[in-house]
């Protein structure tokens, strides 16, 4: 098991290097450091010395090759440097934002997955009946609504009109549940349609397999067939598809956090976009990739746990 995990991690290294390379090409080749400095100095009339000072502070004064070396090595050891806009160490904000972001994202992920699987099982149980048709149609309807409309509409409805939770704010610890309630509900609802529909097809695929017929011939009831035999097999494609949900989760965090004033990485990134803070965007792109790769490794492990055919050696 350990060796399997280690090998998976080893595979990730060249990809990480590739991402570091990509971010370097994107960010260093595009904007002139001079104009970055000008934009970010709060003085009204920065002198050349001030600009030089800023360039020095942010490491833009070195030759491109050195910058590249610093960039890649810095990323590999999580040294992200300072924000272009505020001069604050990026790692500080990442540390602060990771908690709230992680909370919202993981809750949305887990609740969403549970809900989608439950609904998919329900719809699959009623396959061929109008419950199935109606449910599938509902899923297509739900997945045709753009995420932003969910957030705007439901925040307005649940937060402002019905007052089910705070519209903005955040507290750490137990008190956080109150603040994440609405974002999580919205996040889950927004993803429900497409996930349910996808999982339904996975389940229906499995339902037509021979082993299901065997189970039925043994006298296993319909519910047990679905929940035990079919679901466990359908989990394999479901797990594969959850990796694809990571980018959606990140997007969800971006929007939800900003709308509900949750001080996470999402709102940090949006600020960075608005102030063209390349250093922060760079760090976040890299961090997002790491998350994705970690997700990939976790998926592989989960995969190995569910599917006995995957060999761990």
């Amino acid at each position: 098991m350990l060796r399997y995990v280690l090998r998976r991690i080893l595979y990730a290294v060249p990809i990480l290097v590739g991402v570091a390379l990509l971010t370097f090409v994107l960010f260093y080749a595009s904007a002139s450091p001079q104009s970055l400095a000008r934009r970010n100095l709060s003085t009204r009339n920065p002198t050349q010395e001030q600009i030089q000072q800023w360039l020095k502070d942010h490491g833009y004064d070195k030759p491109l090759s050195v910058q590249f070396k610093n960039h890649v090595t810095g990323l590999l050891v999580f040294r992200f440097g300072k924000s272009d806009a505020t001069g604050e160490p990026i790692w500080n904000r990442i540390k602060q934002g990771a908690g709230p972001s992680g909370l919202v994202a993981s809750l949305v992920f887990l609740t969403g997955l549970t809900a989608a699987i439950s609904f998919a099982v329900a719809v699959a149980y009623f396959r061929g009946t109008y419950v199935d048709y109606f449910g599938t149609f509902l899923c297509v309807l739900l997945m045709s609504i753009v995420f932003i409309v969910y957030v705007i509409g439901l925040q307005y409805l649940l937060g402002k009109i019905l007052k089910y939770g705070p519209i903005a704010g955040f507290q750490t610890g137990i008190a956080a549940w109150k603040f994440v309630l609405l974002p999580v509900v919205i996040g889950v609802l927004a993803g429900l349609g497409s996930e349910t529909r996808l999982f339904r097809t996975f389940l229906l695929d499995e339902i037509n397999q021979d082993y299901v017929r065997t189970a039925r011939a043994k006298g296993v009831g319909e519910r047990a067939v679905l929940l035990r035999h079919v679901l466990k097999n359908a989990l394999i494609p479901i797990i594969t598809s959850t990796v694809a949900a990571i980018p959606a989760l990140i997007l969800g965090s971006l929007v939800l956090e900003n709308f509900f004033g949750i001080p996470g990485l999402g709102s940090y990134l949006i600020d960075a976009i608005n102030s063209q803070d390349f250093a922060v965007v760079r760090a976040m792109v890299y961090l997002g990739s790491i998350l994705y790769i970690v997700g990939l490794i976790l998926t592989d492990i989960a995969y190995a746990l569910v599917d006995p055919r995957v060999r761990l050696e």
Partner: protein
Amino acid sequence: MRNVSFIATLAVFALTLAGCNNNPYPAGESTSNVLYRTLSDDPKSLDPSVTYTVDEAQVTDLIYPSYFQYHYLKRDPFVLQLNLGAKEPVREPYVFTDKHGKTVKGERYTFTIKQGLRFQDDPVFPGGKGRAITANDFIYSFKRIADPGVHSPVASFFEDKVVGWKEYAAEFEKKGKAHYDASLPGVQADPRDPYTFRVLLNQPYPQLRFLMAMHFTTPIPREAVEKYGEQFALQHPVGSGPYLMSEYRPKQRIVLIANPNRHPEFYPTEGQPGDREAGLLRDAGKQLPLAQKVVFNINKEAVTSWNLFQQGYLDAAGVGNTNYQQVIAKAGMLTEEMKRKGVQLKRDVQANIYYIAFNMKDPVVGGYTPEKRKLRQAISLAIDSQAFIDLFSQGIGRQAESIIPPGVFGYEPEYKNPYRRYDPDLTRAKQLLAEAGYPNGADKKTGQRLILNFDNSATTPAGRQLVGLVTKQIERLGVKVESRSTRSNVFQDKVNKGQFQFIRYGWFADYPDPENFVFLLYGPNKRPGPNASGYDNPEYNKLFVKMRALEDGPERLAVLRQMRAIAVEDVPWVYINHDEDLSLHYDWLLNVKSHPIANDTTKYRAVDVEKRAQMQRAWNRPNYLPLIAIAGLLVVGAIPAVSVVRQRQNRRVRRADAPEAAAAADSNNNGKASH
């Protein structure tokens, strides 16, 4: 078994709902003596040498007091009163010979601060107890402004006036932080009195008093700056004001609590006529600050702040396009709904101006020839300020006739700018345009339509409205306007580099002196200084220098009028409007009187905690009816599903009503299945 788990789920759900409330603050906090304010974003810095925006100053000025402060209640004129200062500074002529051997007639200010002032308690001081404040701490803050590494925005205010400033500032490059040990020639300690320091100027500069009322000149503990480094700016401010920072959570909140080491300060005992009736002297003579705690909520979206205000979770709010109709009924009065909720409306004249600035270096719209002037005059005549006021200031505010706003010396309400007389037919404007060489908006020589580029940072819907308005108004002249929208920082960059034809801009007073406005057109202040249009008229510049040294009075007014006449004729700007500030607060917030310049007014505010708590409860009862309705619908919707399950369980393959007729079945085989 199934039912049990179902009931358990319901119970958990119900409990969750019951525990639901939308109070965004830690339990119990909003029932204590705390003020709730809002910031539109994280401060970029709370370093008193750097902070410049109003939002940041709201916090900074509570932590860092200055030599002077503005009287809370008095207006017209604004009154500067001593805060940390022990007595009015002594102002004497100071004549010296500079290094070129020229005799310079300057000025010397002697400042004396109160004794017994202390910084807030902080581990950086011996024993963690706040150290006594001396003149050196003031001098240190001057040195910080001079330090190019600090990036102080007011450095330019001093560098050409304070003796030896430029040379001192240049040394930082070589010596780095150690240079703070060297003395700044123009700002000197009194060797005999640790509470006195002098500022030497190479020219008369009456505005220095105002600068001494800004947080830039607050005493700063050098040990704290050196210990906390970058942390000093945000996470770890160390000041001496009425409040100190107890908590800072980026993107969430800044919490200030009363500083036990603050110097005794009391609520003013006198104000303007009407203040007593308005209840503003209720707390007269009480020690400040009145609220023990101030919470700044950081809400990026204006909408969020407004929603929180409506729920009673913010004590005050601004009025903008989003909430105008809900708040204001007619003639600037509050709507019944707002009155019922106990909301109070405050309208305040602001010392500010919004304008369109032409790039005076631009080959098309810039320049000082009569034709170019006429082109700008024509455009100026085409712009209807009232439309701007209606659209962006809810119809409240004054049309601007010249650069000086109401409330500042030199503002003359009866003055009418000949090029700001809007006439819907644009007869005069069109005539001027023709004289400028563009009859009906087309170039006389080439016959091509004149195309102007309007640079802006309009990436929001409101910005789109602005662009639409400007375009619509100018295009009535027959000229075509093309909008160039970029993000605000790129836009700023373009402005600083002078890569634009015209822009819309605004200026808010730093201090209530006309110099703070007319310097926006002073040639040497050109980009990237405050003079964005790059206007440079020698005559105007000469008058400006003269005006700066004068005290308010008829002579100064005469000079200001001359300057106005020049600028009005040249039209580097189209003056649009002076904004008025509309703000709302609940009646549980007491002693509310806004101050256009001062940013430390929070310390005078008090709150009726009980009333607030009561209202918050009353307004925030969740409405569970729809939830119950949805649950009901789900149950109803589930009935058919349940019946499907039932049918499945009890289904028989044979239809009960299908009699078995074997023979019939056998002969049935014909035909039907064919083809």
